């Protein structure tokens, strides 16, 4: 069964130019990459040819190249545009990476594995500071019980697998010294993780 809904899977800042970022949602590994026009791609993290993780491939700017046979897949559609073993041939429509719906909001990258999904939650105000995603070895339902929104911070959860969750925090309060704030919030989230993991153990 495919998990429905939009989930944050990374911070926008994690998708550096020419980088391929590896994450997961609901047990599905995902390769995230930003093309040279700034568009974020979320693809199943395996080349459809021989199954090699695309996250060890190369982000060429407008295409992702698989590390194994150099097959290149186009940003946006995932369509294979080159099979180097057969330079004269045009790859067929079926030669395509599996592409998921992907968008960016509030400094986070959001993915939906289902074709249909409700809207991404809205946030008050227009200034948000994404906190470092906190990886927790615990199922979503357990993490949900511990995470509490406030007037200053909102949390969104990424179920990576049945037993692993990432807590994505968005700071929506006032920001004095951003570095000090991020550090303090990171400490708080680390403590929260330790509490949840000791309960999960």
């Amino acid at each position, binding site marked *: 069964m495919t998990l429905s809904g939009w989930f944050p899977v990374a911070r926008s800042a994690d998708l550096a130019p020419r980088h391929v970022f590896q994450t997961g949602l609901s047990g599905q590994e995902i390769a995230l990459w930003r093309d040279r026009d700034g568009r974020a791609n979320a693809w199943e993290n395996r080349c*459809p*040819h*021989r*199954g090699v*993780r695309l996250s060890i491939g190369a982000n060429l700017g407008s295409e992702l190249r698989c*590390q*194994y046979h*150099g097959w290149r897949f186009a940003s946006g559609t995932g369509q294979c545009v080159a099979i*180097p*073993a057969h330079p004269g041939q045009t790859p067929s429509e079926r030669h395509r990476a599996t592409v998921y719906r992907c968008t960016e909001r509030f400094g986070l990258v959001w993915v939906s594995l289902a074709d249909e999904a409700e809207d991404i939650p809205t946030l008050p105000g227009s200034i948000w500071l994404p906190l470092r995603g906190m990886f927790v070895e615990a199922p979503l339902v357990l993490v949900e019980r511990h995470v509490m929104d406030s007037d200053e911070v909102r949390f969104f959860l990424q179920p990576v697998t049945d037993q692993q969750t990432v807590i994505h925090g968005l700071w929506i309060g006032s920001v004095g010294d951003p570095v000090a704030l991020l550090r303090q919030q990171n400490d708080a989230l680390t403590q929260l993780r330790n509490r949840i993991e000791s309960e999960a153990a």
Partner: protein
Amino acid sequence: MTELTCEDRVALDEWHVVAALIGLPVEQEQTVRLLGCDIALRRGEDHHISARVAGSGRSLPVQTKFGHVWTSLGTPVRTLFAIPEYDEPDRRNVIAEMVPVHVSAPRAVENFLDLGHFAYVHGGYLGAEPHTEIKPYKVTVEQDEVIASGCKAYQPRASLIADQGFEVEYVYRVPHPYCAVLYKSSVLDETRQDVIALFVQPEDEDRITAHMLASVLDPTSSDQEIKDFQQLIFAQDKPILENQIPKLLPLNPRAELWAQADAGSAAYRRWLTARGVRFGTIPA
């Protein structure tokens, strides 16, 4: 008896490599793994080698061939395949390596047969852009072996003693579900080939040790240099193999996409299906 978890009769009844002879200590038991089962190997003072299933103590057949120790957990129905070149007097037979890899045996064999990855995984050695095209080659099944012949690839450094690039011609043999032998043009003698064999020890469905034998025409390099070259090449393959999802080889032809260059891999998958090999595969 619950010693065997592997239910694949075909795999059980094959001979499998479990060690290199050269590394096997005398009068000292060594535990090796095969098809999900621990086996105690012992080489006596007289160099006789015995193999027993750990725990139950059941005695297993043993033979040594190509510098390696082979055993079977079942009743071997086939004799172990031959590599006639191994016995040619002017060849250097070097046990090149034994590398544990977190992948299934058939994925490793398929990688060994693969031509299309040379320019990307072995760039500067076995391939280079823009020489990426794989021309059609011939694939047959002869005497129960998959044979791919007439395979051509431009290689900047085809072997340790190749000092310039040239178009190398390959023949591949798959005589065993988890072993493959390749023949590639010799730099020294255009009528002969260097032989490289991959013997995969299937430890668990998704864990192997890859044993590699180089049987090459090279009068000048040291054993260590020959080993180092093979290890350098295989070290480039290992991270690819360990990043394949799923780790078991899917035998359903629609599970993965194909290009014409994959004719050898297609034939290997069909051959595994026809033989009924299940260990390390996802049946069609």
